[in-house]
């Protein structure tokens, strides 16, 4: 960040101040880490609903006749196949197959005449994604526009999220018909809103994209509608434990330029069979080295949390490290994801070195937590 590039700020920053939020710097943005108790915020999302400000996330609009073909080339998934108002989780790979970012792509046009996509990337990777897409668009009749700072993003997550979002006065098709990983266009107080049934918590919920200047009004309407439902304002601390319980990877923890999708269980996200060449294809086809670490889920007993960076040992021998870990608020025991040598991925002799103490760990399946259907 240079002196003449001002720090971006959420349009809700002063609202968070009024609400007594504790703020942290996240990729240059001052964002709420918690409003009060992050355990209470976590629990609210599991049992009722929580409201998150995610305005720091990057929104890049891709449009033009070749937009679909361009994204097929630039990303790992077959983006051209998604229908209007459908969402798709995808990866942006480097030539060597490493992960530049994981992102969600929404198709936001009514028909195929003028395809338009909203690419939502991690705040910390905004510039890396913008740079990569801007370079990869050469030769395609398409454009990439960074709308991050003109866009507000809020998420309502939890079992009663639909009742709350349905009560804020959106002009739209009925929300009941909106399926998971689908979106619909709506209007709130005269402003366009993209309402998506997506999230990062393992619960039902919505993510709402709106112009930055209208975000506060939308936020206050959600808070008001949520009062009778026990809606909690939630910070990034709760978001992290929620996504970890749901087994969702986090860029910078599980995902990085150093891992190929197959190492972290994301081979299915890469469309090797259904499309032609794309950036990173050759490396993905060649596959990771035989001894390249793989992602495992670990559980343990007691109350001590394995944390990111802690060594993982197999029968006393270092074989990897924890990428994310916490004392699971919902399950009440420690959970973690770790990158370990493939030979140890099924070992029953794993321990995590928790600041000098060996914590026995059991290999588990993701997700740690799955909501009841």
């Amino acid at each position, binding site marked *: 960040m240079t002196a003449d590039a001002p720090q971006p700020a959420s349009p809700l920053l002063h609202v968070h101040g009024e609400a007594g939020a504790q703020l942290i710097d996240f990729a240059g943005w001052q964002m709420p*880490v918690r409003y009060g108790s*992050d355990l209470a915020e*976590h629990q609210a999302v599991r049992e009722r609903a929580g409201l998150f400000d995610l305005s720091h996330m990057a929104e890049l609009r891709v449009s033009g006749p070749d937009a679909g073909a361009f994204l097929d080339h630039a990303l790992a998934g077959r983006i051209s196949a998604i229908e209007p108002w459908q969402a798709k989780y995808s990866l942006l790979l480097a030539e060597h197959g490493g992960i530049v970012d994981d992102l969600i792509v929404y198709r936001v046009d009514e028909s195929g005449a003028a395809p338009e996509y909203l690419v939502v990337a991690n705040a910390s990777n905004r510039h890396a994604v913008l740079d990569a897409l801007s370079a990869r668009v050469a030769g395609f009749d398409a454009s990439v526009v960074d709308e991050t700072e003109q866009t507000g993003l809020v998420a309502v997550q939890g079992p009663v999220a639909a009742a709350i979002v349905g009560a804020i006065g959106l002009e739209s098709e009925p929300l009941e018909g909106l399926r998971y990983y689908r979106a619909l266009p709506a209007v709130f107080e005269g402003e366009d809103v993209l309402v998506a049934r997506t999230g990062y918590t393992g619960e039902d919920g919505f993510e709402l994209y709106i112009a930055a200047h209208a975000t506060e009004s939308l936020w206050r309407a959600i808070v008001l509608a949520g009062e009778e439902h026990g809606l909690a304002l939630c910070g990034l*601390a709760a978001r992290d434990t929620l996504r970890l319980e749901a087994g969702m990877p986090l860029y910078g923890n599980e995902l990085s330029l150093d891992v190929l999708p197959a190492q972290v269980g994301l081979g299915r996200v890469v469309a090797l069979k259904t499309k032609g060449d794309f950036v990173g294809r050759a490396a993905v086809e060649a596959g990771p080295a035989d001894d390249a670490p793989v992602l495992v889920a670990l559980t343990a007993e007691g109350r001590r*949390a394995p944390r990111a960076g802690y060594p993982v040992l197999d029968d006393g021998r270092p074989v990897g490290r924890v990428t994310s870990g916490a*004392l699971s608020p919902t399950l009440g025991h420690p959970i973690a994801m770790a990158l370990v040598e493939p030979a140890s991925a099924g070992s029953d002799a794993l321990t995590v070195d928790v*600041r000098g103490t060996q914590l026995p760990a059991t290999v588990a399946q993701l997700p740690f937590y799955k909501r009841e259907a």
Partner: protein
Amino acid sequence: MSETKYTADHEWIRIEGDVATIGITDYAQSALGDVVFVDLPGVGRSFAAGEAIGEIESTKSVGELIVPAAGEVVEVNDEVAGDPTLVNSAAEGAGWLVKVRFTEEPELLDEAAYRELTA
């Protein structure tokens, strides 16, 4: 009741007679977030100045209980071990962590100096 003193490592200390009660400050608990686990030393454990004799774990991070002078643990707060949220709700009261007997004089901050440190 003696005056509460502080350390730069965010502990509060109240010395009564030859026993000092130690906890983490309200500022420290607020920075940690929800405390979910407290690991306290055994009674009788002796320690050197600057040693970490306990850990306070929150959902997001780990804080250490660092003693400002050499001494010995004479009592631990079993109640806080059973209910770590006491560290959040009553950091400078019922959420105390250990009582110790120092064998040397600790160098401590008064309240004004500590407030300045955390301002």
